[in-house]
């Protein structure tokens, strides 16, 4: 745990991997803000728990809309005055072969995964520039590197996030801001969408670690990347997949 509580924004933290990331930063004593289009029982738990209620902020927001992203970041800055860490985790997938994918599905995935990440990174990096410090982590995916049948649009956005990571690292490095990405493998979360049990077991058999990942596996890597002591590492992608693509 760092000596001063950090102000941490984690997008899409109401469930799945995002919720695991929120829990990790609450456990390390930080102030955590998250958003999603609607709340969940987990969000209500953090809001009601006396141990976390004054260190937790939830704002309903659809980050595919620039105005919502602005409202969210403004709410965080109004409450805590700064942002130390941004984790761009919010994402959506629509599976199906590209030849049958609708315009709406392409827009939905690109608008949230890519444009939402750009909106949030723009808003937060501006404020980090003023303070000359901060960390940004983009949650990409191994499918952005290896591809996956039926996830062409999703894979494209995840590969784009890694390009954004490298470009932004170069842009912001001289201002004391690190930008990295984490490419998780297959996790036991709702984002393992469209995979039946047989497919999941096949993935487990091919994974050297012999299991699917947990949100905590990713959270520990994220804590490492956002530790201010690790400010010589930027522009990198950490693959957390149990060795599946190693």
């Amino acid at each position, binding site marked *: 745990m760092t000596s001063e509580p950090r102000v941490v924004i984690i997008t899409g933290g109401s469930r799945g991997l995002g919720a695991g990331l929120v829990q990790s930063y609450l456990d390390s004593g930080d102030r955590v803000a998250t958003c999603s289009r609607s709340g969940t029982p987990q969000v209500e738990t953090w809001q009601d728990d006396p141990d976390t209620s004054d260190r937790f902020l939830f704002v309903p927001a659809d980050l595919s809309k620039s105005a919502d992203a602005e409202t969210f970041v403004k709410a965080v*800055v109004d409450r805590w005055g700064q942002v130390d860490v941004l984790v761009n985790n919010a994402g959506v997938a629509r599976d199906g072969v590209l030849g049958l994918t609708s315009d709406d599905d392409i827009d939905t995935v690109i608008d949230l995964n890519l444009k939402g990440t750009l909106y949030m990174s723009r808003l937060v990096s*501006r404020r980090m*520039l*003023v303070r000359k410090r901060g960390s940004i982590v983009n949650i990409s995916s191994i499918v952005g590197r290896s591809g996956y049948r039926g996830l062409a649009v999703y894979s494209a956005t995840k590969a784009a996030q890694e390009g954004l990571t490298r470009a932004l690292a170069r842009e*912001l490095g001289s201002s004391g801001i690190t930008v990295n990405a984490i490419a998780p493998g297959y996790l036991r979360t709702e984002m393992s969408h469209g995979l039946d049990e047989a497919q999941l077991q096949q993935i487990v058999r091919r994974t050297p670690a012999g299991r699917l990942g947990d949100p905590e596996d990713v959270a520990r890597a994220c804590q490492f990347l956002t530790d201010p002591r690790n400010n010589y590492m930027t522009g990198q992608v950490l693959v957390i997949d149990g060795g599946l693509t190693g």
Partner: protein
Amino acid sequence: MASNSAEQVVRDFVARVKPEAPALELDTPLYADGVGLDSLEAAELSATLEDELGSDPFTSDEMPQTLRDILAFYAEVAVEA
């Protein structure tokens, strides 16, 4: 009032990030051949103005080139308010 505040914010910012810059006049270019702000410093000034004054001339259609441009933006905001 807003223009006076904006002018002070800009002057404080320039004094902090470009202490070696020439005296800031109303028409001194903010970038090359003037104050010498680079693009990241311009983004920082943009965020600072937004934090201090609640609106930001760098988000308007034309990027401000001088202190006069910035003050004109806030004068217009004041008229519209």
